[in-house]
């Protein structure tokens, strides 16, 4: 499990980040003393550092440079300073990414995953998924079951991928829309219904006419 060091002076954010990362399956390493951060980092050997720029009595920029001199751990700046000048400076000092507060939780997690993937040669999320008797090839956009295959559009693919990753659970329409927006598909409720009908039609063609159940008032379930 990747170890993530949290260098953040706001106690509420630090605590919540610790909880969040724990829930996401990382090992959080919150820092509470800001005087000897390079030494702490050397002791704890994190895989990733989340670094705030405005620290008490310290400047995150120089800290990043100091950290970068001693080891190759990737650094993500998480800061409320949001000018292009700050960002360029952070990245030129060896930062791997730059996120401005207030960030949304999915964005933060996605960027953490991306940086960890880059640094660990992890091939990234699988390009196939399997659930409920369905086999989905995310790269080709093809779903297959019982030896039959159907091609999906980008929207249908993301809807199905979201349902498959929560197989057995009820996924609300709002959660589905959220997941689609995460993938830069900006649809509304009506378009979701249209896509859902089409997706069900395609699944019926390959012999799974009731793979996706509607749970009235709650959402969909695969």
């Amino acid at each position: 499990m990747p170890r993530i060091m949290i260098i953040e002076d706001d106690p509420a954010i630090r605590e919540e980040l610790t909880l969040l990362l724990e829930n996401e399956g990382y090992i959080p390493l919150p820092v509470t003393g800001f005087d000897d951060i390079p030494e702490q980092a050397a002791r704890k050997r994190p895989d990733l550092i989340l670094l705030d720029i405005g620290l008490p009595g310290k400047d995150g920029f120089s800290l990043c440079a100091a950290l970068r001199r001693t080891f190759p751990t990737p650094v993500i700046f998480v800061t409320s300073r949001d000018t292009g000048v700050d960002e360029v400076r952070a990245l030129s000092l060896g930062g791997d990414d730059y996120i401005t507060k207030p960030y949304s939780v999915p964005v933060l997690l996605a960027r953490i995953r991306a940086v960890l993937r880059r640094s660990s040669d992890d091939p990234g999320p699988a390009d196939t998924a399997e659930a409920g008797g369905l086999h989905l090839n995310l790269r080709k956009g093809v779903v297959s079951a019982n030896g039959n295959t159907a091609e999906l559009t980008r929207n249908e693919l993301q809807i199905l991928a979201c349902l498959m990753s929560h197989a057995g659970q009820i996924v609300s329409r709002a959660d589905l829309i959220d997941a689609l927006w995460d993938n830069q598909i900006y649809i509304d409720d009506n378009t979701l219904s249209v896509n859902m009908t089409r997706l069900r039609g395609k699944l019926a063609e390959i012999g799974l006419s009731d793979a996706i159940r509607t749970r009235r008032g709650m959402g969909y379930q695969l």
Partner: protein
Amino acid sequence: MTLREFLSDRLGRIALQLICTGLAALFLLATGTQPGVLALLLLALLPVFVTVQAVSFLRQCARLRELETILNTLDRKYLFMECVPPPGNLYERRLFDLTRRAGRAMTGAVSDAKAAQREYREYVERWVHEIKAPVTAARLICRDLNGNTRRKLIVELAQIEAHVERALFYARAENPEQDCLFRQVNMGDIAAEAIENHRPLLVQSGVRLETDGLDCTVCTDEKWAVFILGQLLQNAARYRGAEPVISISARACGKQTQLIVQDNGIGIPAHELSRVSDRGFTGSNGRARGGSTGMGLYLCKKLASFLDLGLHIVSQEGEGTTVTLTFPAKENLTKL
């Protein structure tokens, strides 16, 4: 200063001189001076008078021209009195001193006001950075809540962020050059970031967003462009109609690139269209819906003019609004 103005200004003095001369002539006549001698005397005095007045006129003209030139070349005109050579005569020198003292008091007041404004701007910026910490914490805490409450709270938090951001950019718009960084930016990245920033409002409004042709680059300041586009998206979502659709598209227009934000919302009444980017103008739509600050488009216009962006709004009431942002050709940006 024309000759006529000069003469009317000197009317009293010239009249007095003429009266004195007349009285002197009468006195001389009465005491037995020959009229011929008197005429000779007056003829000799006339050119002296005329010459004195002419010299005086020319000198005043030259002095005024000199002062005018100094004022025109000054960048900060209120420093005028510090830059002009003092006059020769005593009375004018005293006047000059008084004006200079008044000027110094004003220079002091101006620099105090400037310092106060700078301090205020710094305070606003610091405040904005500080308020972001609790908002971030609140967002993180929100994720423990159940779906609906979380969504509603996130929309409200996003509204706080939008207000905070406007305050920040309002403070920045005073000295834009301090925070500006021009570089090549992908239009798709600008759109994706602006959409992400205002996503809670857009999703809650049930908006469908269409993007087209955004795979091009422009040379601009990314943060500012994101802010401007974000304001346009906010407006499109706030003043939406039934089944709202917002389309964001880009197209090349000669060497320039146009970013077009089109919605099918309630539109802007024709007679208000020219004033929508005035500071504090809320319009009938803003008043009807409430919560309008009249700052969004004002800031857009201000920042756009600094970024050298064209901002053009077309609207048909009941049909929708189309805003076109024209990014300048890259080679035209050297002056910035």
